């Protein structure tokens, strides 16, 4: 942001680096998180996202680098001297304490009156939609309910930062989807700065204000969900988020590329003539209806196979000119209206506005 009034920073990471012996878990991470936003650390397992969260929580010590919370340097502070609430994947609810005692756990220590604590616990349980659960034990509740209790406990002391470590991954798909929305709503209402670690791209895209895509201990891209999905800056981001076709080709200069014997005109590309490239095309980046024949970047081929996935289908297009198969998505309606079937001929045109072209570096996927 280039405004002269710098935004207040909830959290600032400067060159946070973590090595376990020879293995580098985090490579000099720089990141600023503004108050009230929900940031997702997204990446495959082993990318360092959980390590980064644990370093922010003080549960793990960075090899070097600084962490500033609300402008205060907490780089070397123990967990208890930082200000955050945390929800773990396992919830870590104390099994021998009731739900109310669990939620009150951090409050009891703060010399508050019993009435205040009881009121606060009830307020929190109501907030997470479990107003009558106070007397139960964790083992008497479902996974989703336990997850909400863990959230209430983390929020009880009104921390300025909420850390969520894969909070939904232990839950069934249905419950997960519902809780996604609830957590997002709650977070918006309380305006509590939140960092959530997840390996689930759908979760990250649907919940986050900003997504931090991590790969092999580094940050590949930071941006809004539409930024990272529609304008991926690295082949990894393009590949990790959603489905994508990777077409091998050669740049011809002037935004023109040759793939097989086909020639594509891709305004996004600025590669010198003769450069080997990989062109990333998502299955939905295509025109199939209307006057396809009048569009550029047309491809004609045969449908070799259709994978039925419910609301939409993925069809494998065998286009001789491309010399490589390509997946094209059809909505269920399009499939019926256009009479697409296995073995049938189709003509499509690529939607070039979202197609990304990366130079082909030897060794990259």
């Amino acid at each position, binding site marked *: 942001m280039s405004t002269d009034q710098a*935004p207040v920073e909830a959290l600032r990471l400067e060159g946070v680096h973590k090595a376990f012996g020879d293995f580098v878990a985090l490579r000099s991470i720089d990141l600023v998180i503004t108050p009230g936003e929900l940031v997702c650390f997204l990446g495959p397992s082993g990318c360092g996202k959980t390590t980064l969260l644990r370093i922010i929580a*003080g549960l793990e010590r960075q090899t070097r680098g600084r962490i500033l919370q609300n402008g205060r340097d907490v780089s070397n502070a*123990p967990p208890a*001297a930082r200000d955050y609430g*945390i929800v773990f994947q396992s919830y870590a609810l*104390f099994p021998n304490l009731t739900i109310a005692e669990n939620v009150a756990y*951090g409050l009891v220590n703060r010399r508050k009156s019993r009435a205040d604590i009881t009121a606060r616990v009830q307020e929190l349980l109501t907030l997470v939609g479990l107003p009558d659960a106070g007397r139960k034990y964790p083992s*008497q509740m479902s996974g989703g309910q336990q997850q909400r209790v863990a959230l209430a*406990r983390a929020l009880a*002391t009104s921390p300025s930062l909420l850390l969520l470590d894969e909070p939904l991954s232990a839950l069934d798909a249905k419950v997960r989807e519902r809780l996604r929305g609830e957590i997002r709503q709650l977070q918006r209402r309380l305006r509590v700065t939140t960092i959530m670690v997840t390996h689930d791209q759908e979760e990250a895209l649907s919940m986050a204000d900003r997504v931090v895509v991590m790969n092999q201990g580094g940050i590949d891209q930071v941006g809004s969900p539409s930024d990272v999905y529609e304008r991926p800056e690295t082949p990894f981001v393009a590949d990790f988020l959603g489905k994508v076709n990777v077409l091998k080709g050669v740049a011809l200069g002037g935004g023109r590329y040759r793939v097989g014997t086909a020639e594509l005109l891709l305004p996004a590309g600025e590669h010198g003539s003769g450069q080997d490239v990989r062109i990333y095309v998502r299955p939905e980046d295509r025109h199939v209806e209307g006057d396809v024949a009048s569009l550029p970047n047309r491809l004609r081929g045969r449908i070799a196979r259709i994978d039925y996935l419910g609301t939409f289908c993925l069809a494998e297009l065998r286009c001789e000119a491309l010399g490589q198969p390509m997946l094209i998505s059809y909505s269920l309606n399009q499939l019926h209206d256009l009479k697409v079937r296995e073995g049938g001929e189709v003509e499509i045109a690529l939607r070039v506005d979202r197609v990304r072209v990366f130079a082909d570096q030897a060794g990259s996927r």
Partner: protein
Amino acid sequence: MSVATIPTPMTRSPSRLALAGEALAARGGLVLLALALLVFLTVPLAMILVRSVEGRGGEFAGLANFIQYVQSPALVQSTRNTLTFAMMTTLVTVPLAFLFAYAMQRSCVPFKGVWRNIAMIPILAPSLLAAISFIYLFGNQGAFRFMLDWVGLNSIYGMPGMVMAMTFASFPHAAMILMAALALSDARLYEAADSMGTSEYRKFMTITLPGAKYGLVSASMVVFTMAVSEFGVPKVIGGNTNVLAVDIYKQVIGQQNFSMGAVVGLVLLLPAVAAFVIDHIVQRKQQALLTARSVPYQAKPARGRDLALLLLVIVMSALMLLVVGMAAFGSVVKFWPYNLSLTLNHYTYGFEEAGLEHAYRNSLVMAAWCAVIGAAVTFAGAYWLEKTRGANLLRPLIRFQAMLPMAVPGMVLGIGYILFFNAPSNPLNFLYGTMAILVLSTLVHFYSSSHLTAVTALKQIDSEFESVSASLKVPFYKTFWRVTVPVCLPSVLDIGRYYFVNAMTTISAVVFLYSPRTTLASISILQLDEAGAIGSAAAMATLIVVTSAVVTGTLFALESWLIRRTQAWRNTAPR
């Protein structure tokens, strides 16, 4: 996004002082534990090394003691006897225990609980009990002495009696390991074999045995170590067959030759450490054997097999009960086998005559202290080790020392204690001859298993409790008290029970450390046997078994009551 509407968080961090206090508590606990292990385990053991290269007067003697040892035919013969004794015991016990475990885990034998409980009886008894029973049965006045002729033996004294008594004493230990090993089985493997039409024999050879092989090695090592370190059995029923553990005793107590005792101790340490290392390596491999997706094997009825195994376990159980029953019966008859009228004289007059009427009370006091202090210290120590942060250099040191006692025979620990605590220059010298040193040596002697029990229990609870507490600014020791201890209470009781029973039955380390005032029931069996009062020896052994059984039963009942009372939050998870 407007910054102004964000509520200012109420950051009320705990004071710097409170945090420093918490860090101090975390590190302080570890430092104390490390120090205690150092003073009461490692340094006494190191004293053996030092003493082994000193002459009788304390001068440096280099390897002279070792040379003298190697040149002494009697001591070399003891080494040979010890290894023979340990190997024979292993060869007899492990196959028997395997058959028993197989019957329990892989067949449909009825009344499994009964057989299992009977098989565990030897744990409650001092190993001397079996020796005494075998003397009653096959000794010079034994009722079944004539049976020895059938197998061509002259006398029960010596190797035959030693192996028989030791087999009884070590059987439950081997059986427990093998039952655990056979419980780990993947039914899917057997189903896959069945689908390919595999014979029972081939399934046994290709699935069952390979699956149990680590258990077999582990059980062998445990039995071998027990026999190598055993003092009581060879002392009572060994006759002229000397073993190393008895030699140490003779050198130190009989001849006051501490240097030679130290050398023999080191020699005894070798096979024990070797067995420990092998077991350790094998156990590491075992962990990778099963995956989370395995489905436990359930035996299906098979008439011939079940009947044969039932007969076998009945015979085994009958023998076990015979051994225990013989000692108990011997303790209440006037003069076995000639006068079988009942009497309680062995319990009253017999103890008094030997001046041992306080021995049983001493044992109770010692065992109670061991149970209470042991459970508290071991569990807290394991907690500090596994769940606190900081002091990372200290942790491997403590872990190593915590496992060390498992590899150290009690006799070796005992001689280390004499050498260290009996030294006049040692400020801890005042402990020598007290009840305290008996408690300390017993705690250290049985620390490893207890520590492992505690660590296992702690590893089963969520690893993030301490992280959550820290984020809520609750010090870890409050969470320890409010959550960890209540959750792990059954395991804590288990540890206390283990210490109690072992304190009641142990002889090896304490035999060097008791004073006339603090003599123990287990040791008094030896004294009564030496004095020829075998009826009273049997009486004392019986008292120990009954006490161990009552305390074990009580603690079991307490445990199950506790688990039932906390059923609301224990294991009722709908997930």
